[in-house]
């Protein structure tokens, strides 16, 4: 126990300053009202859906919870069910075998809801493109508010995308 506490004390606080929203990642006009945004901005619940990624984007989503980025301190939390979520964070090209599951998850998420597509694959299908097995970009299957490019996008870029989605445009 002593060693554990010593290690905590030695490590100190590693969390860095949070990035600002990146408005350029927005693909749809802000649909939510000011009042709702104000609430979401303080307590946003995200449900991640891997719709067919190579798992590279997941690595960076995990990293947003690491002590350096510490997404939770911004009031942004990953939740276990779409029914508890305000936002879906979707990775991958949407494989045809995940198309129904993604649509159902979207339907199960209560309104008002936001969708952020992650990675080159989420933005335009990436290297997998469209085929017998892949529907391509996320927007081909459900409406997307913000799309964050990168292969994979860095944790900072992912945070900038999430923040852009909950930022009021007015």
């Amino acid at each position: 126990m002593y060693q554990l506490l010593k290690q905590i004390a030695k490590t100190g606080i590693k969390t860095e300053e949070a990035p600002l929203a990146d408005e350029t990642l927005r693909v749809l006009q802000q649909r939510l009202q000011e009042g709702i945004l104000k609430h979401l901005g303080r307590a946003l619940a995200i449900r991640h859906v891997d719709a067919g990624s190579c798992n590279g984007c997941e690595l960076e989503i995990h990293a947003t919870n690491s002590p350096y980025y510490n997404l939770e301190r911004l009031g942004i939390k990953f939740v276990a069910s779409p029914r508890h979520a305000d936002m879906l964070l979707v990775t991958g090209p949407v494989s045809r075998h995940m198309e129904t599951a993604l649509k159902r998850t979207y339907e199960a998420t209560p309104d008002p809801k936001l969708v952020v597509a992650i990675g080159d694959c989420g933005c335009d299908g990436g290297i997998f493109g469209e085929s017998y097995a892949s529907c391509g970009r996320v927007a081909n299957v459900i409406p997307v508010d913000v799309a964050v490019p990168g292969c994979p996008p860095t944790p900072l870029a992912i945070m900038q995308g999430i923040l852009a989605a909950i930022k009021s445009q007015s």
Partner: protein
Amino acid sequence: MAFEELGINAAPLPGAMPAFHARIDASELHAMCEKARSQKARLVTLWGSDETTRGGGYALHLALAFPSGLLWLSVPLDRGHPHYPGIANIYPSADRMQRAAYDLVGIHAQENPDHRKWLRHGAWPGGVFPLRKDFDIANCFPPAEDHYPFIKVEGEGVHEIPVGPVHAGTIEPGHFRFTVVGEKILRLEERFGYKHKGIEKRFETMTLEEGARLAGRISGDSTVAYAWAYAMAVEGATGGTEPPRRALALRGILLELERVANHLGDIGYLGNDVALSFGFFQFWRLKEDLLRLNSQLFGHRYLMDMIVPGGVARDLSKREADLLLDRLEKVRGEVATLKSIYDEHAGAQDRFIMTGQVLPELAEKMGLTGFAGRASGIRHDLRVDYSIPPYQQLKVQLASHTRGDVAARVSVRFDELAESIRLIQALVQQLPSGDIRVPLVDAVSGRCGVGWVEGWRGEILIALEAGENHRIHRCHAHDPSWQNWPALQHAVIGNIVPDFPLINKSFNLSYSGHDL
């Protein structure tokens, strides 16, 4: 030349790994596999191909690992009735691979106990085979229901818990069907294929060079291992393009960096899963430091696209090499401290020990591979078994354990982490001078190449056949998860449902690498 072990003629394949190729008749397949099994040869992978554009029918291929090297067996199959005797009774891990080969190529394993589809859900109808040459990659079918008959277990107090494909955390999609009594797991049945995105078909639209980027995206957490295996296969298929020694050393550094990053992250998560969130924060701090260093030295946090056919894409300067040595020394020290905290943490050890056990005998039967195999007494590591450059002079230490539980997998991961740091340091210190890339020799259509690499999870194999004009005729990619997923079904039996995430994470298998 004669391949003594099986008493057949096999042609040595050019390339870094000792590998041989032979053609056998379907009627010889069973006897050949029995003989291989009796000599403790492992089944690495099995796949199918369409040879109708070359005047043939279809073909079944398998790759077997012998102490002398890899044996790639091709079995030509009749165009009208492409079937062969299934080998799942000899190699149980063949079961799902045979079913996938049917879904994709339409070659049929007879006498297989399980004839359910595997990778196919509703994206294409039965009787249509995407990896056939007359199937157009853009061919889309209206989505259909996926009927999959799970095996039913009945009894008093028995009930089912279906989980997935969308899981509660940031996890890839797959379906787990638990049969439980109270909290105790009686049976687990897995169902995958959700992430199938047509990777192998996509390869066939690419040139040998273009394929490298795709190979690096089969399973993102193993991008280096796949890129290396792919590069090795292309180098073989182009008649033995030899990457410069400096490039090989850099490849070793990249692969070990990938191993270190993954073990750091997973060991952290394993702490988290047993309520030691201290472990998560500490190890993810170290992992993030390493990813940032990767980005600084190589321009990519996960080292994607660094290994290319013919060499590597980026060099390491003397100053950068020194920085790497310095940082790794610090990681080594920190990991040692954290390991002693994990070791002495009674709460964590209590959850780790005897949880999710795969005993050596079962591991051997199922063909468990990689670090999970080594934690269950399977003493194989490609870096040790076939010590080719750059591992030749490094005397890689094989980490192993025999208890096969979560604790054993954690222990092997810690050992491999430390060993990888030592290997990187040694490789950096002895970095040969010279070029980092050579041009590829032109590929001759029909030539085969094999890439076989010990990734952090286990052995990754790429089997490649060149087509006309430097294009890909067939590229089969194999992830070690194919062998290890079925073993997970056994590992959870008798455990409680809440321990499933812990057991699952201790293996951390790839869905994307499996579903292709």
